[in-house]
């Protein structure tokens, strides 16, 4: 399923992709950078908040750590551990205790045969499928997932496109740009055709994971519909319209803490649940904009400012 698409597609961005292609051949075994410190924090000691290897996840990890510290639970961070395969192992072996994750991708990873896509269904299915000792805490409303995005002009031209249901009526006149895997993945062209009866006029594979090339092609009207992540700062910056997905073609991807149950006490649980209560997709967009945009803010500083703004820290 698309549980591997997020880190992969982020990884595609930029010139390092060429190198990555080369390294992918040799990196199959996935050397675990944490293996040497595997039993370091088995009991006692500070709570270690880890993160996957992309900026948004690192920011959320910093938010978790900040909130835990504010609640009197000593927490440290171990950021950019790697992809899900790596950080789940790291939680199991006790090198980290908390990692921000995404409900749908996490479920797809622990249960590859999963077919549930709606937010409530995903959250309900998760606990039983997680490896023993691991659990998830309350989910936030913040979601980072694939979305069909059009320009404001395109939306207006076709009578105010708001959802993919609207898009389906004019699909056959539009060219869709997305990463190559979109062509075959269940949530890609097959899903659009099956669930929304939307078959675009043409499909343009662009391998930058909804990055600058995709956005430029969309603004140039070389493509009219693009697959861009919902937390992309490019969306507000270019006044793009994110089409709703009422029939849940895409897995829900609510941000939630994946934790090692015996390392998180009630106080820590309350602190993390409190973060989930206030964190929104809009917050993620502006946090990513601060870190990945022109400001190049340190994830820790961006997280600290957010925590202060929400009254979690003083």
């Amino acid at each position, binding site marked *: 399923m698309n549980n591997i698409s997020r*880190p992969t597609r982020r990884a595609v961005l930029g010139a390092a*992709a060429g190198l*990555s*292609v080369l390294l992918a051949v040799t990196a199959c075994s996935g050397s675990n950078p944490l293996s040497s410190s595997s039993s370091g924090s088995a009991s006692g000691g500070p709570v270690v908040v880890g993160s996957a290897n992309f900026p948004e996840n690192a920011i959320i990890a910093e938010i978790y750590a900040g909130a835990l510290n504010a609640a009197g639970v000593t927490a440290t961070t171990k950021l950019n551990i790697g*992809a899900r395969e790596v950080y789940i192992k790291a939680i199991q072996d006790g090198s980290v205790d908390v990692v921000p994750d995404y409900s749908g991708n996490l479920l797809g990873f622990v249960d*590859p045969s999963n077919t549930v896509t709606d937010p409530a269904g995903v959250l309900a299915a998760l606990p039983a499928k997680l490896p023993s000792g691991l659990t998830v805490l309350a989910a936030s409303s913040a979601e980072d997932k694939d979305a069909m995005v059009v320009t404001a002009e395109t939306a207006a031209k076709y009578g105010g496109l708001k959802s993919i249901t609207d898009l389906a009526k004019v699909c056959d006149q539009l060219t869709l*740009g997305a990463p*190559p895997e979109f*062509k075959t993945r269940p949530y890609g062209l097959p899903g659009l055709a099956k669930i929304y009866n939307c078959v675009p006029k043409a499909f343009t594979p662009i391998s930058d994971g909804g990055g600058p090339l995709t956005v430029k092609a969309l603004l140039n009207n070389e493509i009219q519909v693009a697959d861009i992540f919902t937390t992309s700062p490019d969306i507000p910056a270019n006044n793009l319209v994110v089409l709703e997905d009422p029939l849940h073609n895409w897995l829900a991807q609510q941000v939630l803490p994946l934790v090692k149950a015996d390392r998180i006490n009630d106080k820590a649980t309350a602190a993390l649940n409190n973060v989930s209560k206030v964190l929104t997709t809009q917050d993620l967009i502006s946090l990513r904009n601060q870190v990945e945009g022109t400001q190049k803010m340190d994830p820790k500083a961006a997280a600290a400012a957010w925590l202060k703004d929400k009254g979690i820290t003083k």
Partner: protein
Amino acid sequence: MVEGWQGHNACQQCDGGARVSLSRTMAPATTYTSTDPFSQGWQWLGDPVNWQGPSGIPARIAEHLGYTGLTLLISVAIAVPIGLYVGHTGRGRVVVVSLAGMLRALPTLGIMTLFALIATSTLSLMPAIWALVLLAVPPILTGTYAGIAAVDREIVDAARGVGMTERQILFGVEVPNGLAVMLGGFRSAVLQVIATVAVVAFISLGGLGRYIIDGLAVQDYGQVLGGAVIIAAVAIAIDGLLAVLQRVVVSPGLKEISISEVALSSTGGKA
């Protein structure tokens, strides 16, 4: 970034189900009976489906060679005149050598992305071609320059002594004598371009790189390997043709000048 691809690899199994059930929508779809990527590569190459239609191997080879040809045409038009001028006159040698060295250090994928973002039409052919031209110019330029510069100065002086014009010296003496090295630079450019044209698939263009980029995106390593093998085969075949050409056009009176000799004489400050 690298870890992202690591994850990509490790999760091969989780994607298997999706790939099989949706194989009908995939342009060239090969059902593998093996899980070993190398056997999958051979199966992919042996599947007749992959040899047909607009996304079949022959069509992709044609696109690949088309991009290569266009790139080389532009590169030769730029690099050969400059190389001849610098080799013959010795003027601007330092500039050309250092500039060519700098160009070699540019990552083609990054340059292509940059050009695509600057261009008025992001997903068009020319931004990609110009990025490849930057890759092809250095070997052609330095090969041409070094070939001309390595010609024995006594021969050139003799030609001047018998009253040949500068143009006659260049095309009648220096080019035929330096041709082996010049073609060496060209062959090296051709090899690099054929191997690197694969990156244009990154910005939605065709060519054999499609198999690698599309295969990687869905962990179809049979397709990746098949595409890579075809690119290598095409590169070797074209290089073989050029080797024959080199043998035919270079004067039999000339012993082949080895690269090390050229390097020695060009750094020896003869020009």
